[in-house]
């Protein structure tokens, strides 16, 4: 009996000292709710759009943040007691000491991608050209177009252009040994051609069918087999790329069915419409990226390579050749640890 009691006391002490594993966090989490009212569901405009190169993609986040911060100097003393989130005086005094290997949490270390940029002056020039093109031409036109054409129609136009490039996605799924993906693309093409009025609608994504889009290209295929970017290029009109990813410019021409039926110059006419239409569906995204950036050129360059790297990883995880290898795609391969 005594032993029992002793153990019980020990247990209580143990938990008192260590903390009940289940408690602290949930408490903290829930505690916030009541004060403000609780909600549900979600949504948010700003991230909501996004398209094409990540750069135009949604304004990354909300980083919200707060700025009640009257700028530093003035209220240094006040700050001490304020301490909104553990931001105590000490935190500012603390030196950075290679904490956790340069803050690279193991699973995310691969995000530290870099790319050579030997032609930076040219790229910066092209970056500026594309930027002006967007603000002076593309954006005003897209805004007018947005006024004139209702959203469902614009989404249909986008679907249609996407549908046309089916051969690229299919061929690349096959080259990547992603047979499920190839099957899914073929199914989507058949269903959307017949039931989606030639690709204007996307019934394949509806519930019940749910054939996922395989957004893949030659750059990803090459990357999957170990071909590196080479270096960074900003193309006029097309934006961020690299020698490897530029293969798709050729691929798009060769495998785009329209390019066989029509003279080459019609594809020049097609691209602006595609650009305007896509821009009309993602107005504000590019602006957010630019505004958030301290050096927009570097922000876009880094965004581009991070984005492409993750795409290649995701494709590897689906490939018959790579999916069982370690490092293929850490996230996709390992199920989340239970604890």
């Amino acid at each position: 009996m005594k032993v029992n009691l002793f153990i019980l006391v020990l247990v209580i002490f143990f938990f008192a000292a260590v903390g009940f594993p289940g408690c602290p966090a949930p408490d903290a989490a829930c505690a916030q709710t009541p004060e403000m009212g609780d909600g549900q569901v979600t949504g948010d405009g700003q991230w909501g759009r996004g398209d094409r190169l990540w750069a135009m993609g949604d304004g990354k986040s909300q980083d919200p943040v707060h700025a009640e911060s009257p700028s530093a100097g003035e209220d240094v003393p006040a700050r001490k007691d304020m301490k909104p989130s553990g931001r105590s005086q000490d935190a500012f005094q603390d030196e950075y000491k290679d904490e956790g290997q340069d803050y690279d949490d193991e699973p995310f270390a691969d995000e530290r991608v870099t790319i050579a940029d030997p032609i930076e002056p040219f790229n910066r020039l092209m970056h500026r050209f594309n930027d002006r093109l967007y603000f002076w031409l593309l954006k005003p036109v897209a805004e007018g177009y947005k006024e004139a054409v209702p959203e469902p129609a614009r989404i249909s136009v986008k679907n249609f252009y996407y549908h046309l490039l089916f051969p690229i996605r299919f061929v690349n799924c096959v080259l990547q040994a992603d047979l499920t993906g190839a099957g899914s693309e073929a199914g989507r093409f058949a269903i959307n051609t017949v039931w989606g009025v030639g690709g204007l609608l996307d019934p394949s994504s509806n519930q019940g069918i749910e054939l996922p889009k395989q957004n893949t290209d030659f750059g990803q295929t090459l990357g999957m087999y170990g071909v590196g970017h080479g270096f960074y290029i900003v193309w006029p009109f097309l934006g961020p790329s690299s020698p490897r990813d530029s293969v798709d410019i050729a691929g798009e021409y060769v495998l785009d069915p329209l390019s066989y039926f029509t003279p080459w110059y019609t594809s020049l006419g097609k691209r602006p419409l595609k650009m305007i239409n896509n821009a009309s569906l993602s107005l504000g995204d590019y602006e957010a990226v630019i505004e958030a950036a301290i050096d927009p050129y570097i922000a876009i360059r880094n965004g581009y390579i991070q984005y492409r790297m993750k795409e290649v990883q995701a494709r590897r995880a689906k490939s018959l050749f790579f999916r069982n290898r370690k490092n293929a795609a850490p996230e996709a391969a390992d199920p989340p640890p239970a604890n």
Partner: protein
Amino acid sequence: MQNRILKKRLIGCSLFLMLLLSIPAYAGAPLSAVENTVNRVLDVLRDPKLKGPTAKPAKTEKLRVIYKDMFDEMEFSRRTLTRNWNKFTPEQRREFVDLFEQVLEKTYLDRILEYSNEKIVFYKETMIGEDKAEIQSKVIASSKEVPIYYRMILKNGKWKVYDVVVENVSLVQNYRTQFNEILAGGTPEQLLETLRKKVKTH
């Protein structure tokens, strides 16, 4: 004697069970933390009393409180500066953190206020060690889906966001590259000046 050993084992087993049982509750914490916060933001955005342009300052104020609670701006700043942090004096650090917050707020607040009933789904939580987690969510708009992951850290019993990954682009990584390049050729004071200008011109 026999009896005692049995009892010990019994207690040992129940202890073990208790530990096991407590794990799931723990694992759900970061996800519900971020989900709660996002829901609070949505409540503000949907509040019928706060409609219209006149209510914008009130809305902004409410949102600011929520964000402050959700984000660990210190962690965010240090992670973007990494070794460069040491080049800053404590006063410069304080100013940096404040300015950086303002830049981010100015950029994203307007976009958040544009919110128009997109749906947000939180679908996966991955624990990374004991004090970090990644929460995966997606925003479903009429023309596309945008994946947004929140990386969280447990500090003083509270889960706080220290990085946001939007469409596969980690914000911390992105800013780190920018600050690295700027500080490779410039001084902390120059970076602060750039940030000051950025805050003013908005």
